[in-house]
């Protein structure tokens, strides 16, 4: 496997314009079951059981967690999907 020589100019551009500016945030609520939230994370996002459980616990203990990040349209599609399952999800710009 070869490694292309990196261009300092290109690297700088990548830093200046981050490719991942939006986040999907899932919020804790007193109604949805922990097992159900874990299952939704595992089956919808394709996360492992361990990763899905870790995220569910982060939502539960911290009140919310960033579950995905990427282009705005993708995060909105994820939020729609979370709402479809009855989860409480919002979309925000990273860093806000």
């Amino acid at each position, binding site marked *: 496997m070869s490694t292309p020589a990196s261009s300092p100019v290109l690297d700088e551009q990548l830093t200046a314009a981050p490719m991942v500016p939006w986040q999907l945030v899932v919020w804790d609520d*007193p*109604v*949805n*079951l922990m*097992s*159900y939230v874990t*299952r939704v994370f595992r*089956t919808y996002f394709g996360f492992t059981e361990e990763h899905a459980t870790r995220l569910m616990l982060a939502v539960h203990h911290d009140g919310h967690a960033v579950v995905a990040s990427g282009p705005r349209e993708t995060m*909105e599609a994820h*939020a*729609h999907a979370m*709402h*479809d*399952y*009855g989860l*409480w*999800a*919002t*979309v*925000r710009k990273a860093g806000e």
Partner: protein
Amino acid sequence: MSADVIVRLAGIEAQNLIVLIDELVEVVDAEGADADPGVARLTPDAYPDDAQASAEFEQATRATLIDRRRADARIVRRTLEPIADLADAEDAPLREHRLTLDDEQTDAWMRTLAAMRLVVATRVGITDADEHDVDDPAFHVYDWLGYRLELLVRAADERDLSR
């Protein structure tokens, strides 16, 4: 090895679920549903800090979310009707029945149970997972829906592991 999820429930449970499913559809179809906190919980605000983005997201997703509740309700109702009818015919409401659900039915069941809990929770005023009024009969409905959902999630998770 079966890929179906098995649900065991009494005839009277099937009958009660049908009543609650019909109530859920009535709630989302009701005039003034837009102002109903239960319906609001089924169509959350994706942009609490941006009124315009919030309105655009709602415009793009609300009808689809509500349609899904109706479509799921139809699927779940169809799986329950034979059991509810049989319980009536036999006059044996407590006899346990075995229901096999395919993937689509399993997902519809889970989403419907979760949606019914969310709507009942807004009615009962559940704001904390550990605090509730046990004298309110609606709380016991809420609790039982949680029990049914927990069993279903467990059965579906076990099915996935065996695949």
